[in-house]
């Protein structure tokens, strides 16, 4: 434990936030999940990945996080941490200790880790819930705790796998707002897998569209809109236009 040092939450060194993928191919037996994926993500860029189910989106994230090794090509990225679709909170820990888990794993003393987790949970609107057991939290609250856990890992790159996919529409819109706010205050490189093109248009700087298996990047749309502190307004005509472009590209690959 002493070999790792608790990384600061906010400052990640610039170049560490960069992701470079070259000629990336991943096979599972006969199935080619990803084929020849090349991608460069600048530090602090938020990139949404959309595509039909089974097109290798989750595989892409796991490759970036180093949880899988590619069959061909290279992954060159700083420390990336995965936030799986399900929150995977540990029921034996309360909200604060769940959020503090990466700090404890990095050897940060208990009191210090808890204080930092508490502060971040409060920032995410969970003040007063820090000692709540996981089963006492709503789906939206659990997702906040999971995001806090991901942020406290201190990794410069966050790989979010459909983080709000299981939430209802209102809770999801709310989640997009606080995620935007937290990324506004402490920018990170984000790779966001989503099945919701609106979510992509609201949160991302770029939208990548993947083809059905074998997954390839078939469109790389620059959103070209400034990021808003609370997320872009989904009814903003420019956001609607981005959404329409992404949807069109997605329809193109599905056909």
């Amino acid at each position, binding site marked *: 434990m002493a070999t790792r040092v608790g990384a600061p939450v906010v400052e990640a060194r610039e170049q560490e936030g960069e992701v470079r993928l070259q000629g990336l191919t991943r096979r599972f037996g006969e199935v080619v999940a990803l084929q020849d994926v090349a991608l460069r993500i600048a530090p602090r860029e938020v990139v949404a990945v959309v595509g039909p189910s089974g097109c290798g989106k989750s595989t892409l994230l796991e490759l970036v996080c180093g*949880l899988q090794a590619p069959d061909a090509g290279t992954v060159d990225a700083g420390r990336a941490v995965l936030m799986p679709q399900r929150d995977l909170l540990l*029921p034996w820990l309360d909200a604060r200790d769940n959020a503090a888990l990466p700090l404890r*794993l990095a050897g940060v003393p208990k009191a210090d880790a808890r204080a930092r987790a508490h502060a971040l949970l409060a920032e995410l609107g969970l003040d007063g819930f820090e000692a709540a057991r996981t089963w006492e939290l709503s789906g939206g609250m659990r997702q906040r705790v999971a995001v806090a856990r991901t942020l406290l*890992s201190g990794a410069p790159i966050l790989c979010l796998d459909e983080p709000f996919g299981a939430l209802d529409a209102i809770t999801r819109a709310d989640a997009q707002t606080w995620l935007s706010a937290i990324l506004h205050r402490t920018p990170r490189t984000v790779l966001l897998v989503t099945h919701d093109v609106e979510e992509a248009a609201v949160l991302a700087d770029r939208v990548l569209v993947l083809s059905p298996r074998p997954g390839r990047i078939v469109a790389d749309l620059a959103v070209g809109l400034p990021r808003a502190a609370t997320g872009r307004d989904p009814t903003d005509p420019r956001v609607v236009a981005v959404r329409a472009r992404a949807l069109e590209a997605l329809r193109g690959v599905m056909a």
Partner: protein
Amino acid sequence: MLAALVVLVLLGGWEAYARLGSIDDFILPAPDQVAASLWDDRGLLWDNLLVTAQEVVLGLALALAAGALLALALHRFGPLRRAVYPLLVGTQAIPIVTIAPLLAAWFGYGLLPKLVIVALVCFFPIVVTTLDGLAAVDPEQHKLLRSLGASRAQTFRWVEAPAALPAALSGAKIAVAVGGIAAVFAEYAGSEKGLGHLLLQSIPQLETARAWAAVTVLAALAICCFALLALAERRLAPWAHRKDPDA
């Protein structure tokens, strides 16, 4: 409280049968005679209960420690699991109580052979449930921990050990019921005290009511141990009784 009603009905039926039928007291004493013996022999029963309770509790503790350790080793090392697990299941076909005299010959008439018998009997359900608990950890959870940079030991401390705890206690709850029986057989094989010893002594002396009183105390001991384990489970692993969408 339905359980209390069932017990009352059964006791009533037994009382009526023993009284109205012409059955000798030493063949089947009526519940009130057993109750009388419970009171009259309370000193004797209490002294012997302490001996048997010690055997059951220490034997169970031994089984928990050894069972959890073995489950951990089997979980950690796949080849070991494949090599040893079938053998372990096979050993359960050995009626362990029949080797009790052998253990008495090896370890004498003291506490040790009883502990070994109780632990051997209690060991298996604990290994099985603990192993299941360890294996039931969501693979996604392992992925998450790896992504956060957790070492093997850290994964054990934060995820696997807490997941295995309620499972091991469940195994202990199953084991404690047979643990009492194991202690009685161990005492049969050679001892100077304990409820099993008292039982063995009372029957040839035609003190049937006392034998039944000893059985009643044994049952009470099993219920107490079970309740204590259930309480421990609730205290130590409150999450195990919660419906948690992700656990």
